């Protein structure tokens, strides 16, 4: 079932469109920056944006910071909201279940395919923005000295190997953060037959979490907000990397995934798969 699910995902035009748009936004920013050479002053604008003019290799980090707050969550919401609700509204859900595919197995396959989507999304953004960044801004001044190394946020120079390792860590961490939304999306997707409703539900969670984050009154629950730790990966680019925030982030995200997936399973395992309301069919 997992291979079927992956094939299904990879053959959806919507998925490729999401990936293309994710890669397009950083590219547009890179083109604008490269033609105007007007970088935002340090401390304003997206993270790393002020530094990319001097070193194109930092652009993947800047690109991830660009797509993280809105774009990436939207694509994950669309894809995960479609997971079960899409099959239900297309009618293919009942044929999968009588094939038979166990209900837990189906949900696991959906989670794996959403995980693959998020990982590939973050990876594609990283790779394209690295290519675009180096093409637009070239290697930094440290490149000749340190053999392609870049300056970390703390001022020390990172070797290419260190940079690769930290970038990989960032990709994994962000994919995990997005998988949290994916698991929530799968849960919502089992509650409704409308993929759109499930996707909007995910976005509602993101917006609520982001709104609570700066509130002092929400101090007690802040650590558990899914968006709270999204920017912790920036610490990976310090020297030496600060792992505390990332570790907390990973724990919180895993907690969300377990809870959301458990809720999805609890709801779906006893759910009646009935005709889609609102669609005129025959029989009852």
């Amino acid at each position, binding site marked *: 079932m997992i291979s079927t699910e992956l094939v299904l995902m990879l053959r959806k035009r919507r998925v490729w469109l999401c990936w293309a748009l994710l890669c397009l936004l950083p590219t547009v920013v890179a083109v604008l920056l490269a033609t105007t050479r007007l970088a935002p002053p340090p401390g304003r604008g997206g993270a790393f944006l002020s530094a990319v003019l001097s070193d194109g290799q930092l652009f993947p980090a800047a690109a991830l910071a660009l797509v993280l707050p809105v774009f990436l969550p939207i694509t994950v919401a669309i894809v995960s909201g479609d997971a079960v609700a899409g099959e239900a509204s*297309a009618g293919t859900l009942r*044929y999968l279940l*009588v*094939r038979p595919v166990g209900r837990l197995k189906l949900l696991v396959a959906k989670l794996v395919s959403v995980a693959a989507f998020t990982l590939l999304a973050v990876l594609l953004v990283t790779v394209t923005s690295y290519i675009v960044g180096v093409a637009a801004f070239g290697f930094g001044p440290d490149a000749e000295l340190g053999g392609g190394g870049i300056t970390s946020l703390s001022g020390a120079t990172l070797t290419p190997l260190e940079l690769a390792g930290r970038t990989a860590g960032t990709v994994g961490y962000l994919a995990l953060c997005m998988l949290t939304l994916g698991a929530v999306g799968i849960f919502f997707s089992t509650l409704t037959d409308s993929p759109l409703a499930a996707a909007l539900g995910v976005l509602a969670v993101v917006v609520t979490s982001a709104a609570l984050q700066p509130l002092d009154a929400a101090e007690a629950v802040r650590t558990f907000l899914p968006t709270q730790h999204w920017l912790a990966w920036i610490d990976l680019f310090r020297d030496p990397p600060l792992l505390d925030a990332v570790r907390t982030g990973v724990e919180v995200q895993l907690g969300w995934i377990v809870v959301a997936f458990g809720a999805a399973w609890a709801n779906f395992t006893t759910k009646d798969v009935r005709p889609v309301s609102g669609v005129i069919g025959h*029989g009852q």
Partner: protein
Amino acid sequence: MSESVITTTGLTKRFGRVVAVDHVDLDVPAGVRFGLLGPNGSGKTTLVRMLLGLVHATSGSATVLGEPMPRRAAAVLPQVGALVEGPAAWGHLSGRANLRLLDAAGPGGRRRDRRRRVDEALERVGLAGIDRRPVKAYSLGMRQRLGIAAALLRAPRLLLLDEPTNGLDPRGIHEMRDLLVALNATGTTVVLSSHLLTEVEALCTRVGIMDAGRLVLADDLASLRAPTGRIRLRTPSPDAALALLDGRVEAREADLLTVRGDDPAELNALLVGAGVPVTAIDRERRSLEEVVLDVTGSGNDRFEGHR
């Protein structure tokens, strides 16, 4: 009667305050072609969905192929082919890709036989020549055929088909009937639900009739359609016949007479011997339509006011 393929006892399903299926005790013997008839909303599809484990019963139990459902779904369903509530497919993929993915999604069957299984199923339903067009470009009839191909993919022992001829043209309906009879001859039990009486009458050997969630009747078609003890005959001189058969004639519509009696041959001889010509004569049988109208209410798509 041989072993049962489907048995339900007191099977009931409520959706909120609506009782969709109400204490149904159904028994489908192996090897029959069973037709489930009933007006729209009589609970046919909900019953089929419960047998497939898609909908969970509120109370009662169901056994399919000797195993309890839905508890043993993993063992039962690989031997069941189903078409529920119309066909469905991933619209952006071709018919062949749809069947391949569906085949790959579930248990059983070797991977290298997949192409052969898919090709055979497509050939049986008359889609052997389909190209790479996506299913969303298919006509309703082609989708219906694809849905039946998906049901046949695993050479099932039991076929559960909901409105299998929906969207097919007369030739397609005829082909599908031949296909189901051929499958039945090789031992597959066929259960189909339909609101088309002629469909069930032409195909099935046993009939169940549902009304307002209850199974109001289940019997062999042959005994439902047993002679009524009357003979219908047509004659160009009805008055002469009426005089001859005085007292035995129950009804007369122009040249059509309904006469009490069991033996058309004897009656024919009597009339011809007396010089009354007979152009048509046969036992009167109840049509399935009469049987259905007799035992069912108006269905739930009709709402009449009480004045």
